[in-house]
């Protein structure tokens, strides 16, 4: 147990910039040590916050008193059978990829934070990224989990293992939209512990699947306006859905508006454009077939081939990725310099509602940068207020956008999760059945509500009464 406040201070914030507090820090090396900590916490009613790399944007890693359990010393890669990797939760996604790359394979989820985040963090948040357009989020790649329940019990959940009969089932309406808002309607025991944001258990080891590396060509298409980019995205998505290994079958479709492109004009061949798309096309049919088909698509939607930056080798792809990742990084730099909070959306909507959402994003009352995963109708609108008054206006606008997204069948959070920063809105917007059934599951697995207390939702009754 570490009680030095100077050491603990390094564990109190995540990328949300919330600052928590804690009395003690544990850095266990085995699942049994994790279990012993949770048993004692449950007996004493001490809140416990699991801590991975603290890259979440939601405050889920910010403790609200009590103890922190960091998985940083559990970072062994335990086994690899050519497909499935067994690794402890504290292993970095970058380390996992380094191992896999040596075998010509890769781990499909690619959260923006993959260089610094951990496998356990990715599982706890059901992390996704640009490539989730093709590969889905982390959930799809998890085969089995070792979990320490909040009571200190250890379980091993394998795909297909039934959920124990006495665990309340999460009631969640089916949705066509990628979502990280709240617990999943779990199909098996593994599902329960993916995307639970550290509220239902601490994953100590995971078995995850990998894919063979496929060469890709990167295309960065500069468009005169949003309409052309959206038409191109729609056409590419239709083609990809019709034939996942067709000539046009991108694994990501990323959008940038004019403001986003202006932020990275030194990193792309174009100083200015109305909008742009970035796609990665796996080369499964010979490069020429793909390039020819994309060229036709570019022509058909009213862009021109001269507006397409193409990367056919590692250098070129690295340049494109650097440009893409520079957008959020530079937005953050700008806000930090101005000393103002970042207000960024993580909303996603069904196909039919995207055009209206686009209009709403573009009507923001303060300066903004719009970019993200257009293939999943999941854009990040970053509002950049210039004053305290504008902060209030931006927050109100974000709320209105969230309401509109939910109203159209969308989600409050497509990938970042709820954490602490969005729990009030989750309470407001989530279907009542989902909230009731989620609280019931939480109560069943964590009778003392010790684990990540105050993340995702509070106990229905005031905390004192819930015990």
């Amino acid at each position, binding site marked *: 147990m570490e009680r030095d406040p100077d050491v603990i201070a390094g564990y109190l914030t995540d990328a949300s910039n919330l600052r928590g507090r804690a009395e003690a820090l544990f850095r266990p090396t085995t699942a049994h040590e994790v279990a012993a900590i949770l048993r004692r916490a449950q007996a004493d009613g001490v809140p416990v916050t699991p801590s991975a790399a603290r890259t979440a944007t939601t405050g889920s890693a910010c403790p609200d008193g009590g103890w922190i359990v960091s998985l940083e010393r559990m970072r062994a890669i335990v086994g690899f059978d050519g497909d499935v990797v067994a690794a402890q939760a504290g292993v970095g996604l970058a380390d996992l990829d380094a191992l896999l790359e*040596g075998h010509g394979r890769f781990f499909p989820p690619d959260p923006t934070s993959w260089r610094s985040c951990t496998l356990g963090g990715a599982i706890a948040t059901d992390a996704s990224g640009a490539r989730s357009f093709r590969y889905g989020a982390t959930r799809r790649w998890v085969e089995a989990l070792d979990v320490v329940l909040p009571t200190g019990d250890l379980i091993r959940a394998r795909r297909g293992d039934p959920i124990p009969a006495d665990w309340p089932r999460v009631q969640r309406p089916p949705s066509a939209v990628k979502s990280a808002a709240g617990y999943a309607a779990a199909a098996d025991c593994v599902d329960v512990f993916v995307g639970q944001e550290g509220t239902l258990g601490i994953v100590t080891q995971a078995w995850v699947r990998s894919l063979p590396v496929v060469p890709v060509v990167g295309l960065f298409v500069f468009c005169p306006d949003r309409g052309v980019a959206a038409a191109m995205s729609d056409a590419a998505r239709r083609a990809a859905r019709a034939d996942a290994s067709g000539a046009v079958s991108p694994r990501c479709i990323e959008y940038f508006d004019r403001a986003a492109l202006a932020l990275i004009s030194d990193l792309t061949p174009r100083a200015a454009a109305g909008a742009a798309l970035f796609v990665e096309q796996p080369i499964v049919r010979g490069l*020429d077939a793909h390039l020819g088909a994309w060229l036709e698509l570019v022509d058909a939607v009213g862009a021109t081939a001269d507006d397409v930056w*193409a*990367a*056919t080798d*590692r250098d070129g792809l690295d340049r494109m990725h650097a440009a893409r990742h520079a957008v959020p990084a530079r937005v953050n730099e700008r806000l930090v310099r101005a000393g103002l909070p970042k207000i960024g959306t993580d909303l996603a909507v069904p196909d039919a509602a995207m055009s209206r959402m686009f209009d709403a994003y573009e009507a923001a009352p303060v300066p903004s940068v719009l970019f993200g995963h257009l293939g999943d109708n999941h854009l990040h609108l970053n509002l950049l207020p210039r004053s305290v008054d504008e902060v209030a206006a931006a927050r109100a606008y974000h709320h209105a956008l969230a309401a509109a997204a939910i109203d159209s069948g969308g989600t409050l959070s497509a990938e970042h999760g709820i954490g602490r920063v969005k729990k009030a809105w989750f309470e407001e917007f989530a279907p009542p059945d989902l909230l009731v059934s989620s609280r019931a599951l939480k109560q069943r697995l964590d009778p003392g509500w010790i684990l990540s207390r105050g993340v995702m939702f509070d106990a229905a009754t005031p905390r004192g009464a819930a015990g």
Partner: protein
Amino acid sequence: MKIGVCVKSTPDTAITRFKYTSGNDGIDAAQVKFTVNPYDEFAVEEAARMKEAHGGEVVAVTVGDAGAGKVLRETLAVGVDRGVHVDAVNTDSLATARLLAAVARSEGFGVLFCGKVAVDDQASAVPAMVAELLGWPHVSVVTAFSTDGATFTASRAVGGGVEEVVTGALPVVITAERGLNEPRYQKLKDIMAAKKKVVGVVTPESLGVSAADLAPVVTFSAYADPPERPKGRVIPGDAAEAARELVRLLRDEAKVL
């Protein structure tokens, strides 16, 4: 004017893990992804810019096997008009230089751009040899180049912040340093257009270079990893004590203080 540019196919150092051939006398090429030598990309870009400013034709030349010819094709999308692939084994620098000089002569290049070094053997030998064989001047490690079509000015950083400016008359062999230019982004249109461009394959015989000319004067006897670095040492104890011990070790043992 015909503008020549030499291109070498070298291992992609970002992703390659080298393995030696069984006799330790070379690199196992089957395990390696090859790409355009990074410094040659600056040479290609400079050639393309010279053509855009003065007209002419950019011809890229490589010596090597079919794989090298394929790598040469990559330059056709970034400003090169035509490729010449000399189908021969790279035995040593002089043999390669003889072949490149023969191409330069038969094409009638007015200028020849090369990278300052190839990232595989790090020899920096071929461009100077080509210049010598052609009887042309040679300016190495160039960071700025301009020409009016008859004369040239080339700048090179010679250390200590000093810039040396060389002027002279074409033809000349120029080797490109990082910073000479920013290689252009590859456009889809150019990739498609490159498919219609031609890489001509020539043999040493067709260039009038005999087997005797190509006999290596340098042979590579063995490859080995550099010796492993000794393990780091951890000095235990509290900070003040450890710092004292560190200073003692640096003074008495490493003798760097």
